[in-house]
């Protein structure tokens, strides 16, 4: 069984077909939806940072509170203080976008470093890294972050450094596994026999040619994690504070009205969270199936 799949995999790697022709329709649909969401998020981030908004997100309109979606002038309605929902949702992206990128950068950078150490050199460094992985995995992430909050009262960037650190083990173990797989194929041995410097082997042949897609996938999944973390924390009241909008604190502040049957003020940001995280997850999984050939037929 094993040897067959290996052979077909190698043929797949060298076939001339572009990857989108080999892919499942389902995976392409996932990726399309994911890319759509990523584009929307990035676009909205820039709209928010250049203040190109339909309304001022802090502008109170006490005549028009709790308007539903589709109200004239307010596409997504208004919240309990008459503030424009769409503008607040767009500005809410500021709360997680850059911090999320920071978390991704940390986990990818250090995860790659540790993964290469463990996979390429093996031996004692592998033991140390396994121990570190188990140590990080011992803490429920949210509890660890609450501990850091209690100790430092940090801003969101420091929290995202912690999120990034807790993601390091996943990246490290994936990179390690990939390198060990490559070693089995005598691929690295051949490189060494050719007299290539270690730097070229690791940076070009291992990381660039073989781990590129893996890192992209981890980046999208990491962004999903970061959004989940930021919204959870600002829901709990630890992140961005009112009146600055964040999706989490928007859900929280709309909650009182939820029990009175006025769902929209907390449902709109909740749906934004849902569709965005779903987008990042589907993008990651779809890319994983397409680029790494994970979906078994």
């Amino acid at each position, binding site marked *: *069984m094993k040897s067959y799949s290996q052979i077909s995999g190698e043929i797949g790697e060298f076939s001339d077909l572009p990857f989108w022709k080999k892919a499942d329709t*389902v995976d392409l649909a996932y990726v399309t939806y994911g890319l759509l969401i990523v584009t929307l998020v990035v676009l909205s981030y820039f709209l928010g940072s250049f203040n190109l908004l339909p309304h001022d997100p802090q502008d109170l309109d006490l005549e028009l509170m709790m308007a539903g979606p589709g109200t004239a002038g307010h596409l997504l309605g208004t919240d309990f203080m008459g503030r424009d929902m769409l503008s607040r949702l767009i500005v809410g992206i500021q709360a997680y976008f850059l911090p999320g990128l920071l978390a991704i950068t940390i986990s990818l950078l250090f995860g790659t470093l540790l993964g290469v150490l463990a996979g390429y050199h093996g031996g004692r460094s592998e033991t140390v890294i396994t*121990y570190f992985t*188990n*140590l990080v*995995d*011992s*803490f*429920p*992430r*949210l*509890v*660890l972050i*609450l*501990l*850091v*909050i*209690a*100790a*430092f*009262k940090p801003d969101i960037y420091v929290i995202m450094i912690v999120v990034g650190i807790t993601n390091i083990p996943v990246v490290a173990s994936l990179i390690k596994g990939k390198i060990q797989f490559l070693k089995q194929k005598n691929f690295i041995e051949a490189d060494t026999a050719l007299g290539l410097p270690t730097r070229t082997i690791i940076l070009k042949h291992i990381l660039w040619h073989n781990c590129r897609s893996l890192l992209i996938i981890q980046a999208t999944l990491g962004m*999903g994690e970061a959004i*989940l973390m930021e*919204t*959870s924390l600002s*829901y*709990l*009241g*630890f992140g961005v504070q009112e009146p600055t909008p964040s999706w989490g604190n928007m*859900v*929280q502040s709309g*909650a009182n009205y*939820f*029990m009175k*049957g006025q769902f929209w003020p*907390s*449902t709109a940001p*909740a749906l934004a*969270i*849902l*569709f965005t*995280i*779903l987008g990042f*997850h*589907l993008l990651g*999984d779809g890319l994983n199936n397409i680029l790494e050939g994970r979906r*078994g037929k």
Partner: protein
Amino acid sequence: MKLSAIRPIALVLSREMAITLLLLLGVSFVVFIILYLSPGDPFSALLEGQLSSGESPSGAHEVLGVPPSWYARYLSWLANLLQGNFGTSIRTGMPVLGEVLRVGINTLILTLGSMLVTLLIAVPIALYSVVRGINKISWPLTMFAYVVSALPVFWLGYIVIYFFTHKLGLFPLAFGYATTSTKFGWLYALLPIFVLGVGNGTISEVIRSLRDEMGRVMAEDYIRTARAKGASVWKHSFKEGLLIPVTEIVAAKIPFILGGAVIVEQVFNWPGMGRMAWQAAQDRDYPVIMGIAILAAVFVRLGSLFQSVVYVAVNPRASKE
């Protein structure tokens, strides 16, 4: 069970126990370092206003019997931990360990219950899609799992509270009180357990990993042989294809479910560790959050200890690895 079957388990158990203890030592060190690095240790709060700025408070440390170096401080702190002295809460003045253990049992009920809910949803979907492949039924189910995993658990909590408690009145509107005041108060526990089980964000991962593992096992030669000679495929694939993957994924997801418990306890006012952690983070009550972090790590480690025991019990060869 025969003695020969127990020996490998005992061997692995002792090895895993040693690893667990080592990791818990590491956990205590990480917690200590975070608190050690935090600005404004309890002493500066104690001495606030009594020292001119820049004056070293080291004299006060000596008078109070605090070791000057960080490692001596770590060791004395660790010795206290090992004697069960986790310090006293800054907010309530109660000893931390007793308080955390008292609410820890509620969190244990919540997490174990919701794990069961997750498995009750995930295992049938995974089994179905392994046996039948991707078709008109398993495809929407998988999609549903994706959507559910991305749902913000707090919002799911609101919906459930609104419909079941406000609209239908099926469950007592308790927020922690009804557990003692009404006869059916325990029913209230079902809502948060359900919400955490559905909304802890792990369902799609659990399904995917179970489906991959089961798919791999179902393609093995010995399953084909079992099928060919008319033996029960279920019986031959159960251990390798269901028991091991399920314990593995459950052990791996404990930290996520505990993290989700923080939010669900907040939404439902469930008197557990997560709510206490939230309160402690608000008040910067270090001893409490420290105790919770350590206890949570103990939960996680015990889970993975359990997993390796099951793994070896099913597959004694593994003890020689």
